[in-house]
């Protein structure tokens, strides 16, 4: 008789595949808990020490209170209103210092906001320069139907306060040099963003026919007067802004302190001159500047260190509980009929 219908005899069809299963025996679980506990406590301590070693100085300049220096600027919406902020650094800050601006209650992660950009335009595709994507609406075209470059909400809300820092050296203001180069991601600068290329023409010619975003005071090809290479879509400040924050309270890198103060900021009085343009009163949010040293873990944040310590300890406790449970119940079970 023919055996046409006979199934194949393979390990898979007959479900005989070899298998390995992780075993959760006492001998493995208990040491696991203790090892995890120890490791976590170790990491936690390391993180906490690192975090504590980071020196951070934060100053708010929103200008809400009457006696605040920036009160006038915050309430009179005049362009390039200047205000100054005086502060004292009690302890000298060792090491290189980064300067951040911080915003609170600012939803850069809002869905409509996040999607209001045209990656193709920002990547330098010439067609999209003049024809921004629909996703940029209502910042796609201006009222005269000219294309906006860069289009969209994110670009339009570009943070445009400017800062100058002075060290109050015995009554004499010494400008602290701020370095704004390479503050954005390399990939953003070289891959994600680029200016539209057109041989033999400079940026302003390339951007001809487009208009600047409504809230901007300067066109995109003229963002950095001092450095012509730092203009257009690859302006570093612009790149930092376009890398949207994950959470509503965030900070963004503004400058690195360079020059004489690059590795050491002495204690004493400092004056921060603010060109106050960016309104946050309606959000209502706050604006801050932060000076911070940096370490391998980034900025100062104790959360992770504490979390590691807590869970490490919990693991340890759990390990002990398990030990007791094992010791106790294994005996009971043996006696149970």
């Amino acid at each position: 008789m023919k055996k046409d219908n006979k199934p194949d005899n393979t390990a898979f069809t007959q479900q005989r595949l070899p298998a390995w299963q992780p075993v959760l025996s006492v001998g493995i679980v208990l040491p696991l808990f203790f090892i995890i506990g120890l490791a976590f406590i170790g990491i936690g301590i390391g993180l906490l020490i690192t975090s504590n070693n980071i020196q951070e100085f934060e100053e708010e300049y929103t200008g809400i209170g009457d006696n605040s220096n920036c009160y006038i600027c915050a309430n009179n919406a005049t362009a390039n209103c200047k205000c100054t902020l005086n502060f004292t650094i009690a302890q000298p800050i060792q090491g290189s210092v980064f300067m951040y601006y911080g915003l609170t209650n600012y939803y850069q992660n809002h869905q409509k906001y996040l999607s209001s950009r045209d990656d193709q335009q920002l990547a330098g595709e010439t067609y999209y320069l003049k024809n921004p994507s629909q996703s940029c609406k209502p910042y796609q075209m201006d009222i005269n139907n000219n294309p906006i470059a860069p289009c969209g909400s994110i670009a339009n809300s570009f943070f445009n306060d400017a800062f100058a820092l002075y060290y109050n050296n015995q009554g004499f203001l010494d400008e602290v040099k701020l370095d704004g180069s390479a503050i954005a991601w390399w990939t953003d600068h070289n891959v994600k963003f680029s200016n539209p290329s057109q041989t033999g023409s400079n940026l302003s010619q390339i951007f001809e026919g487009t208009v600047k975003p409504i809230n901007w005071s300067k066109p995109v090809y003229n963002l950095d007067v001092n450095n012509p290479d730092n203009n257009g879509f690859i302006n570093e400040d612009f790149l930092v802004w376009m890398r949207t924050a994950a959470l509503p309270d965030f900070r963004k890198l503004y400058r690195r302190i360079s020059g004489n103060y690059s590795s050491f900021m002495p204690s004493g009085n400092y004056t921060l001159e603010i060109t106050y343009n960016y309104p946050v009163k309606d959000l209502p949010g706050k604006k801050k500047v932060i000076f911070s040293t940096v370490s391998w873990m980034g900025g100062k944040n104790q959360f992770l260190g504490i979390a590691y310590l807590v869970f490490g300890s919990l693991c340890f406790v759990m390990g002990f509980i398990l030990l007791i449970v094992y010791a106790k119940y294994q005996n009971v079970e043996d006696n149970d009929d």
Partner: protein
Amino acid sequence: MKTIVLWKGDCHNSAVLNLLALCSSALHIFTFTMYSAVKKYLPLPYFLYFCFIFKQMYDNTKVYHCTFISFFLQNNTIKTCKYNILTFLPLNLFEQFQRVANFYFLLIVILQSVPAISTLPWYTTMLPLLTVLFVRAAKDISDDLARRRSDKEINTRPCDILQGGSFKAEQWRHIHVGDIVRIRKDQIIPADLLLLASTEPHSLCYIETADIDGETNLKYRQALHCTHSRLQTEGQLSDFDGLVTCEEPNSLLHSFSGTLHWMGEQYPLSNDRILLRGFRLRNTHTCYGLVLFAGPDCKIMRNCGLFTVKKTQIEILLNRIVILVWRIAVLLELEILFESIEFIAATSRGDSSLYMGFLTFWGYIIILTEISQLIFSFEFIHVVHSLFIDWDLDMYFIEKDTPARARNTALNEQLGQIEFLFSDKTGTLTQNILTFKKCCVSGVIYGDNPCSNPTKEREDFSDQVLVDRLRSGEDRSLTEFFRVLAVCHTVMAEEVDGDLRYQAASPDEEALVTAARNFGFVFMSRTQDSVTVSELGKIRVYDLLAILDFSSQRRRMSVLVREPSGKIKLFCKGADIVIFERLETKCLYLDATEKALEEFAKDSLRTLCLASKNVPEEFYQSWSKEFLSATMAMQNKEAKLEAVYEKMEQELTLLGATAIEDKLQDGVPDTIHILKKGGIKIWMLTGDKQETAVNIGYSCKLLDNNMEILEVRCPRLLKVESEDTSDNFFQSLCVVCFFWKFQDEIFQQDSQIASCTKQVGILQHFVELASKCETVICCRVTPLQKANVVEAVKRQQKAITLAIGDGANDVNMIKRAHIGIGISGQEGLQAVQCSDFSLAQFRYLQRLLLVHGRWSYLRVCKFLNYFLFKTFSFSFVHIWFSFFNGFTSQPAYENWFITLYTVMYTSLPVLSMALLDQDVSCHASLKKPKLYWIGQEQQLFNLRVFAVTVLQALLTSLTLFFIPYGAFYNTAYDFQTFSVTVGTSAVFTRITYWTRFNVLAIALCLILYFIMTFILQSAHLYRVAPQDFSFPGAAYNAFSHPYVWLTILLTVVVSILPALIVRALNKALRSPDLHRVRQKALGNNLGGDACPLQGSLIQTITLSLIKGQFRITSSPNLQVLGHVEERLE
């Protein structure tokens, strides 16, 4: 042809009938039928009919071919397929979108294509949806093609139809109502026929009804005398112009009422003139029949029930859960919507906050519906599980080259949850072969001689001692014994090519006569009044004085013969009890015979006792007068005959006993034993007699001698309920076995039977009572009743039911049960066609249920838990994130990550677990049937488990979101880094559910994740399509920060720890309290202490279920389970 067939019953038809009666005298009347469906819904045929009559009145020609209404003629085509080329697409899509999930899927796709709402690109949902639809449709097509093929096979079977004066070879589908067909020996009857004539004397014809009611003995039908005498040639047949009025098509197999109007006279028609579709013609050369019902109107087809789509219990639960999830999601979204409206109102100017909120709402609907992907995986897993069944070599029947087949691929896990098993008897449990095994003559047992000839086939009876004694002829009672066997029966002998063949009404008789022949007592032939037997070479002719027939009440039959010597003898055979009652007072060997009978019964053999008696001439003379008057009696004939028989069958001399084996299929008792140990209640539903059913019950270990049998006949049913409602009743009986017996007469009157099955009350009581019993045997049930019993158990006990059978009479039950299994490899394929699974042998059932079913259940449940866990923990993050993004529907992850998360990053572990996971090996499953319990109790997936899973997912999602949140709070890390961190953690937390097979899969998936992430976030892809790949360098930058890695590490470990702790504790805490709790729960569930399963079960197994993982723990005194447990861990 000039025959009218009409159905009476509804008022339209009776009006037509009156009209017809008026016309018939004046007109030749023509074949006329109405297509039943059209008849019901359209008045058109009536219209045509009247046109017809009028036309006929005018041209009064002889034969009118009604081609123009041939469309409305009921022909014999059956159609079980659902689609044709045109209807496939709309019908199939309609069916598919009736599933909630698919419809929801579609909604999402539509939403996603609206730019204002879309939060995710359209392809994230469209691709899975198309795949699901396509796979489903392909499966439906192949199923439908199979049905179409089988339809075609049945519809094109050959038959002879009378056309224009002679019979022409045609196909079944060409048969129309009113046709006259010719059936040859061993052919299957193609439609419900009125028997007109046959080639046998008196137009008798023998039929086998095994396919319809499972009874294996031959039955006969007889034509009316008038048709028999006047319709003997083809010419006469083609001139036949009778008119039949009969009942509407119905499902009652054992009743028929109608009238034949012919030659100015009326003849009543009852069931014994009717040949039903599915019968097989036996021992009759040819018969002729008039088609009364064809195609779907046939009684057996009416018994088939409608095709319904079956859903597994888990699927139903899942649907409920999916709807629940959606409801929760919608509520959450509404909450978010309000928040969002507030948020928008506070922040934006210009845009309507309500409108924006509305958009946001739909946006959330999209991102929170990852669960839809579940359906696709579910389908796929089912298909592979089915393939495993198809592939299983241990369920491949080598002799017939038939593997097991999972015909319905959506029911696998339910195989692991069966609580009630309904089995057919004939062809399913038994092979339907009877063999003479042993006998006891004068107290000596013969045939118990295993060493005589081991090479000889088992079923052959051989005992040299017996043969020698018989040949020597010294033992007179031995000769007498075989003489009784050779003479006392109703078997017909037929010589075919010099070979003697027996045609018996019951297989028992055939076995006995064949046995007698093997020992030299050859039954040669029979005439109306003599029986010729060759006794050890000597021909002897016995004058047949009377046959005292067998009936199930009498349970015996006798023949009264005059020996060649002139002495009158009564030969009697019957059930032991009835024979013992009628023995002479001083009977030799009584004790020895009783002992022998006991022994035979232990071997599950069917026994009969033989006895004889010398009848004095004068007694016979007086008795024969009484007998004659009883046979002539017009009233109470049966009772009178019985009384006369009783008089004769007294003072018998016991000769001995025979033992016949009704051969079971291989491995049936073992399988039943194992399944019973697995907690499955087995009911045997058979159309056969009570005695046969009980015998089989004993031989297949369904019943054993410790069981107490409670017989329930329909009218007594309620009584039992009312008398014995106390719990003691059940406790005092170890096992109760039910007989649900209906007398044949009831069917004809259609009264009591209807009240038995249709009155919900009685059926309800019956099921309530019967479900408590260990075993139930229902005898004399029709296919429809089988289905009703199944339905009642299904509904009342809320249990998962399985029906197994092989014949057309099981089709309805197979369709109605949660799972229907057909025994394949037999001739009638109808049961297989309608079944969900087909097996070649009953014994494969244990592997199908205990191994495949159990694994399938385990895998599907684990899969569901895992899938729900991973989807929820993944999706809930969006909700937590929404609290920090102004309640806008911003996904927390990259689009590509969302798209690939289910499809690629987590699919392998899920699939490897859902396809390959085994908690115990197949040998352990079969050895410890009690492990089957998890499925019956729905331990692995229920609302509680679901709640636990959701809770775990909730915890994990909280961890997934808030640890990175804390770490990134007020830092310069951006959204994309955050996304990558959370996403990576999410992928890593999948190792929570590791099992035997998916360790490798998890590792593969992690590697895949990193590779894919780097590819999707590469500069090249960004340059190609900046819009679609908007995360260039995000992972690269994120992974270069050790801080991100530390965050991921903490998140993952914290997510996994609870599960780990629970597992570890669970292993340690096999608290005795848990045992007791389980014991109690189990006691309640199984009801009553009588169940032997319960005690042992509690001692041996404790199943604990935590976080969707289950383990089996055992008490230390049971070592086998200990091994099982080790393997489990």
